[in-house]
């Protein structure tokens, strides 16, 4: 299945792209997607346990992903 990973701010700069399509096995968890991203060039600067959102809502790293999900890896926020 395919999951879209969105990257922002310093994470987007590290991986050189604002989004990455990931081909994952059915039943893959958020943590599997993160491991895949960290293995990519520049991905080493992502934390092992980053803050994430799935389909626009904050999610846990053990959440199971579905085909077509939008996974966002959220760097430290700095609004206000």
């Amino acid at each position: 299945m395919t999951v879209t990973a969105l990257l922002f701010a310093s994470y987007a700069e590290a991986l050189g792209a604002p989004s990455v399509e990931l081909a994952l096995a059915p039943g893959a968890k958020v943590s599997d997607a993160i491991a895949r991203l960290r293995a990519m060039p520049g991905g080493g600067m992502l934390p092992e346990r980053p803050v994430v959102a799935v389909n626009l809502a904050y999610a846990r790293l053990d959440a199971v992903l579905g085909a077509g999900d939008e996974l966002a890896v959220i760097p430290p926020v700095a609004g206000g």
Partner: protein
Amino acid sequence: MRTAIVSRAIDPAALLREVESHGSGASILFVGTVRDVNDGRPVEGLEYKAYDAMAERELAAIAAEAAARFGTERIVVEHRTGRLALGETSVAIAVSHAHRGAAYEASRCIIEELKRRLPVWKREEYADGTREWVDPARARAEAGR
């Protein structure tokens, strides 16, 4: 109640007018502006970048939670994105309530939640030409706070 992520200038006074009503005794307007110095470094300008679709949702949720907790629907919040110059408004929060204590608490709650969970990032541009994504937790740690 109204919340928005906007890419144009914020007019804080307009937000205040939007929440005021004859039934409201107290209104609080919080305005965050771009500071010329952050953690001792001279700032020349900055850029806010949002995960727009999620930020819209989170901001609406933050306002709805404050409305339920403090008992007022008279809440308007705008957060700006894009490039901002010194002194420009990055965020404005207007709250009206019959009682001032609740108005203050609702206003404070909204800005704290917004800073904790709104998916927005800030890149500061310094006088020396460098620029950097701000990590508030790291900045606090380095300042020994």
